């Protein structure tokens, strides 16, 4: 049997080189977002990437079904979208609120969004003050019983009674740890440079340099009367505070890593989360730094920090005389009057 002939080898090589010469530019153009338009013209397209932690959802864009996401691959990349227009995305799953977003798509770029889909029926668990009664002694004439206290109730009750707020901001060169008492220090919660405003007893600040981001130092100047500005919180470099019934959000990380929710065409420095009624209290939804739990007079909601289109708002709890706490960065507890509930999301 003769070795592979030169003709066959050269033919094979020619075919493969041709494939490469055609395929490589084609693949580069395709991967950049170029597609064939009318009359074989090349047109730019864009895309949308949907981050999701929920499996089994149905994804639609402009009322067209795109895909069911799976258990492992939960995120969705939608390509070939006409650029320079707004596309309406919605993600649905039975038993969950539908997430709807209108997103502007730019040529050759991908617009990102993260879904917020809470169950339509949220389970709650009431926390009883006692675990029942037990017989403490037995006599021939009377039987004494004592109440067995629920230690969980005690802990939750204490947490709700506490007015201490604390937060930590970690930056590349600076660590700011602050603890303050809302009652003792209404509004005058922080200043890294103005020591007269700081009560060392309540506030501990440790830092390598005094080079805090300008906006933290300027907060007081910028906002003016900061008596109203309370509940400063930070989660994964997302810095938030309550001001005039709205929640203000700024990015405390490097400019390079600013989250997509701040950026449409240009990135903005601040997002204001507001409702028709005043927000009385807020915290971050466990596991997310882009979703807030907000409390109004009679409602507790989850709301996106995303003003690129109408933010998705989904109810968590309704009632009177409400208060809530996120404990251990993970568990949501609601107080209605004197009754405590754990929210089971």
């Amino acid at each position, binding site marked *: 049997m003769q070795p592979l002939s030169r003709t066959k*080898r050269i033919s094979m090589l020619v075919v493969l080189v041709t494939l490469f010469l055609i395929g490589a530019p084609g693949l580069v153009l395709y*991967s*950049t977002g170029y597609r064939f338009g009318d009359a074989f013209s090349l047109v730019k397209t864009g895309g949308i990437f949907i981050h999701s932690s929920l499996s089994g959802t149905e994804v639609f864009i402009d009322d067209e079904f795109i895909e069911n996401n799976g258990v492992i691959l939960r995120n969705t990349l939608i390509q070939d979208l006409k650029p320079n227009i707004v596309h309406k995305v919605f993600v649905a799953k039975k038993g969950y609120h539908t997430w709807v977003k209108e997103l502007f798509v730019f040529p050759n770029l991908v617009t990102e969004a993260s879904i917020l889909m809470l169950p339509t029926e949220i389970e709650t668990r009431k926390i009883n003050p006692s675990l029942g009664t037990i017989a403490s002694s037995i006599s021939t004439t009377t039987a004494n019983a004592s109440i067995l206290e629920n230690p969980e109730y005690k802990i939750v009750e204490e947490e709700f009674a506490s007015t201490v707020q604390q937060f930590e901001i970690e930056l590349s060169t600076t660590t700011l740890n602050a603890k303050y008492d809302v009652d003792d220090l209404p509004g005058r919660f922080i200043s890294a440079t103005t020591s007269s405003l700081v009560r060392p007893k309540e506030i501990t600040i440790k830092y390598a340099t005094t080079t805090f981001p300008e906006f933290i130092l300027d907060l007081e100047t910028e906002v003016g009367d900061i008596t109203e500005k309370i509940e400063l919180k930070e989660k994964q470099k997302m810095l938030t505070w309550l001001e005039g019934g709205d929640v203000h959000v700024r990015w405390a990380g490097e400019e390079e890593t600013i989250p997509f929710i701040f950026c449409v065409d240009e990135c903005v420095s601040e997002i204001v989360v507001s409702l028709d009624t005043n927000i009385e209290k807020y915290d971050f939804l466990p596991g997310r730094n882009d979703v807030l739990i907000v409390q109004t007079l009679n409602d507790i909601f989850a709301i996106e920090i995303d003003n690129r289109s109408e933010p998705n708002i989904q109810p968590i709890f309704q009632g009177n005389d409400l208060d809530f706490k996120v404990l251990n960065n993970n568990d949501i507890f609601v107080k209605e009057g004197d009754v405590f509930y754990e929210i089971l999301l």
Partner: protein
Amino acid sequence: MENEDYSKSPYFHVAHARDLKGKDKFIFRLLEIFPGLLSWGTILAIIFLSAYKPIWAAYFIIAFDLYWLLKTAHLSFHHRYNWKRLKHNIALDWKDMTKALKYEHLYHMVILPYYDEGQSVVEESVKSLSQTQYDTKKNMIVILATEARAGKEAEEIAKRVKEKYKNSFKEILITVHPADLPGEMAGKGSNIAWAAERSRVEVLDPNNIDYKNVLVSAFDVDTIAWPQYFLCLTWHFLTAEDPYNSSFQPVPIYSNNIWDAPSFSRVAAMTSTFWQMIQQERPEKLTTFSSHAVSFQALYEIGYWQKNMVSEDSRIFWNLFLAKNGNHKVIPISYPVSMDANLDTTTFKTARNVYKQHRRWMWGVENIPYILFGFIKNKKISLVKKIRYSLVQIEGFWSLATNPIVILLLGWLPLVLGGSAFRETVLSYNLPLITRNLMTLAMAGLILSAIIAASLVPPMPENMKKRKRKWFIMFLQWILVPFTIVIFGAIPGLEAQTRLMFGKYMGFWVTPKHREESGEDLKTEIQ
């Protein structure tokens, strides 16, 4: 150098820059730096581009992914053809093929160099020679080439083996290569060169055997000759256009102990076999490797194998190529010889040995400065030939050391280093998808590899036949390829090139030969 015989020039047996002086030394040193610089330059350029020009890096990676896929298809095409040819040649009756040829005058000299390998390894090889279908009693000279530095035991093994098989061959010669001869490096090259010269003095000349009638097979000591190997070799030698300007290359199949070796060692071994099979269909890219054959006359003219460097097996081709002014070639005979896969007492030791063996093979990059320098000095070789051979060799070593790293490790780098502006682009989302899809397509070639490998391994030893999962693992093991080509291909390749770049020249490392006591005959059969 215009009219001078290049083999007589002071450059002919140069091993490294340190062997030269002045301007020649400077040029040779630059040529030693060149392969490593090219490989590291490629890797660093991708890292740099990923950080500062991520879009360019992504374009390059996508084009490279496609190049890799098409290259895989190209190699598979050659591989599949050679597999057919190999099976055809194994099935062929070479006795019948050589019937019309006159070859009674032709002697086969088989050199088996060894250091501290055990008697069983040496004996198996000699036994396989005695069982080949050739008139070994009349026309085969076996040389057991031992090393003085290995001590008396090595010589004793040779004596015992000689005693047992002395009647099976025309001659069994035992040679003892003295230690620390000036200008030599301890290793296979200096040993077989010594053995060849001793055989000339002690066997060929006393028996008035014409050097032109002796075909020398320089085997590794674990080489098992297949039954009709010498008939096949004889046929190729006698029908070659220019037999004295040709070397003859069989396909080394590392299968003697394949059932005992761990899966990564099997994959690494088979990958080496596959590479040789592919090269058999691309003779212009083929150089001699491991066990090979060449006429004694050609060897004698150039002073045998080079004694002062590691890669004597491939260097002998380049020595002959330069000595014959570009008129020497390798004839692929597409017939197998079996050798050992790496195996040691523990998995770790085996992995270490595989790495070291591959590093030694990749040290073949030391031929690049030799070739390029030789091309500068030898004006009798055509420029076209010089350019073609240079590019083939440079591309070969560059791709072995860099391509697996570029494909499997650096392909994702723009996403990591490219910054947020890049990460917002459609390109950044498509880069991993396109890389993954093209690589998946390329990996489809592994199915062919698994089938070919399964057809080349010897039958499962009796004591393993109850372990049916062995066959399953024999197929499944191919998923290790992405790891083995990086760990046992690219990394030792890069290490070898880096050593050469910094002038940290390697010495010869003897691959330990270890076989499980399976009691099975090591002779292999094609399935």
